[in-house]
């Protein structure tokens, strides 16, 4: 009796969530198209966090240069679908190419860092992220590949058949603007990413990642080829970044190296850590919070100050960073394993604390 009842409740819950997600862009559009764009960027960041979660959360390899793969994916899209080289491939061809290119870069980064752990790995990956950005900045001479700091503009929007994602269409008296169409496309990709993440976690490969994270020597003695399994984590994580980057290029229509700075890497890492690394739903929550809360502040802090003091005393950007810092400190104190930690990760961090006491 109990089980079917619970299953039915779960289905109702899922149906409600699905309904909310489907109607969300129209609710947001009522508040302004800017909010739909913010939601789209948030989905991109969830996507990125899920990719980084494979490297950091599952395999336990601290990667501070993750945004480089996002950049690789974005440039792959931009170069293959813009007037820059006068190539205009359809997006469903470019996204896999972007994923593959990012994947190759992931292995390129992974290979020399296999023997490094913890802080050392973090520093090398950080360097890698910067190298990619600096390359993008300078690969405009002698042959102009990336167009340097000016970036690449007029990137083709996504087109599926006759549907052009840069224009508005109306269907059933609903106005589907460009961002709303992108929202649904991104949502579909995100669902796919979540399924891939969950399935990888509970698989032979996922267990091997866990083993490496827990004790590399024991993992090797149990017959796990740590080299291959680590490279696999880098490659998988990087392909997620590549796909997200491609979508970013398509949505924005313009990219430049400025979008791929170190702070972005740190931001994605914070999303993973805040939500609870290793737990897919935690990571999703972390990414949603860190994407939306700053935007909410931007829209509330200034009017609030005006109402209270009659003028703006502190800039919203400053308050944003202030609250961000405060949130990080509080997290470290009260929930070091994240808001929704994975059970295993929680135990790991509890143990680390015992060790330092």
């Amino acid at each position, binding site marked *: 009796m109990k089980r079917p009842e619970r299953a039915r409740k779960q289905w109702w819950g899922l149906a409600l969530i699905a309904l909310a997600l489907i109607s969300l862009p129209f609710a947001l559009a009522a508040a302004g198209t800017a909010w739909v764009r913010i939601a789209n960027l948030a989905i991109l960041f969830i996507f990125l966090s899920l990719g980084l979660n494979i490297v950091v959360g599952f395999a336990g390899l601290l990667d501070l240069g993750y945004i480089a793969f996002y950049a690789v994916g974005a440039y792959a899209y931009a170069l293959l679908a813009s007037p820059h080289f006068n190539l205009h491939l359809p997006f469903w061809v470019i996204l896999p190419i972007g994923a593959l290119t990012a994947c190759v870069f992931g292995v390129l980064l992974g290979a020399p860092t296999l023997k490094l752990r913890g802080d050392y790995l973090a520093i090398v990956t950080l360097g890698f992220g910067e190298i990619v950005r600096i390359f993008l900045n300078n690969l405009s001479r002698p042959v102009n590949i990336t167009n340097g700091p000016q970036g690449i503009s007029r990137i083709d929007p996504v087109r599926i058949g006759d549907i052009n994602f840069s224009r508005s269409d109306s269907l059933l008296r609903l106005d589907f603007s460009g961002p709303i169409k992108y929202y649904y496309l991104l949502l579909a990709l995100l669902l796919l990413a979540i399924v891939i993440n969950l399935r990888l976690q509970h*698989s032979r490969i*996922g267990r091997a990642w866990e083993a490496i994270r827990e*004790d590399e020597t024991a993992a*090797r003695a149990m017959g796990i080829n740590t080299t291959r399994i680590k490279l696999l984590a880098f490659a998988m994580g990087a392909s997620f970044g590549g796909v997200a980057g491609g979508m970013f290029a398509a949505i924005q229509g313009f990219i430049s190296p400025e979008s791929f700075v170190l702070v972005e890497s740190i931001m994605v890492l914070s999303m993973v850590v805040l939500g609870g690394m290793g737990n897919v739903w935690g990571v999703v929550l972390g990414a949603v919070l860190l994407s939306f809360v700053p935007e909410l502040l931007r829209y509330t802090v200034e009017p609030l100050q005006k109402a209270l003091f009659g003028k703006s005393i502190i800039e919203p950007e400053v308050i944003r960073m202030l609250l961000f810092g405060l949130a990080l400190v509080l997290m470290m104190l009260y929930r070091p394993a994240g808001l929704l930690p994975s059970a*295993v990760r929680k135990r790991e961090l509890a*143990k680390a604390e015992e060790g330092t006491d």
Partner: protein
Amino acid sequence: MNTVVAPWNEGRALLECAGLSKRFGGVLALGDVEFCIGRGEIYGLIGPNGAGKTTLFNVLTGIYPCDAGKFRFDGASLSGLRPDQIAACGIARTFQNIRLFGNLSALDNVMIGRHVRTQAGVLGAILRTRSTLAEEAAIERRALELLAYVGLAERANDVARQLPYGDQRLLEIARALATEPKLLALDEPAAGMNATETLELRRLLERIRADGTTLLLIEHDMKLVMGLCDRVLVLDYGRRIAEGPPREVQRDPRVIKAYLGAAAEGTAEA
């Protein structure tokens, strides 16, 4: 697992080592060590602290490369292979200072041991193909069987780190057995166990041997070594000083000297 294998003196040797040497800077950890283990044998490795027993284990399982010498296992040379390749060839080990995946469940620990005998890759995991699902179910079934085999069936969902010490040692054995080893190398399996647990361990090891796995064990519990091992190798300062059935080795003056010092040699002779 239920086949009984011919006694060790029939057929070829399972593991043959010759001239194994390992130096750490100026310290000779292993000097020209030679021995061979027959199929189905329980082979003991004893010696005072610092004699090079664990170093020998680490060389055999590929964690340290050896400076000189070679070893053949099951007819193939294993020199220079990586630990995971050696595990794939059929040598599994436990660790002196237990190295379980402490934050994972007992079941997960054993399931990870199945990694080397299974093959599902990323695509299989993402698509959940029928073969992947079947393999996954088989992994779990086998892991539960092995937990029951070592007597930890009730502990499957417990966190490894929170298990009692003796159970952690048993779990390490179950995890090693999951790799389907031909040779199971145990580094002080009875350390930290009380008398009852040691007795149960002895029964378990005898059962593992009866089920066809050859055993190599480092152990300080002499009662266990004497009762269990067919032959023992004694190391001292990295060199082989005696080898043979436990009763003979026990009386060897060089062994007594190594364990009790030169003064004891005098009293033993007197």
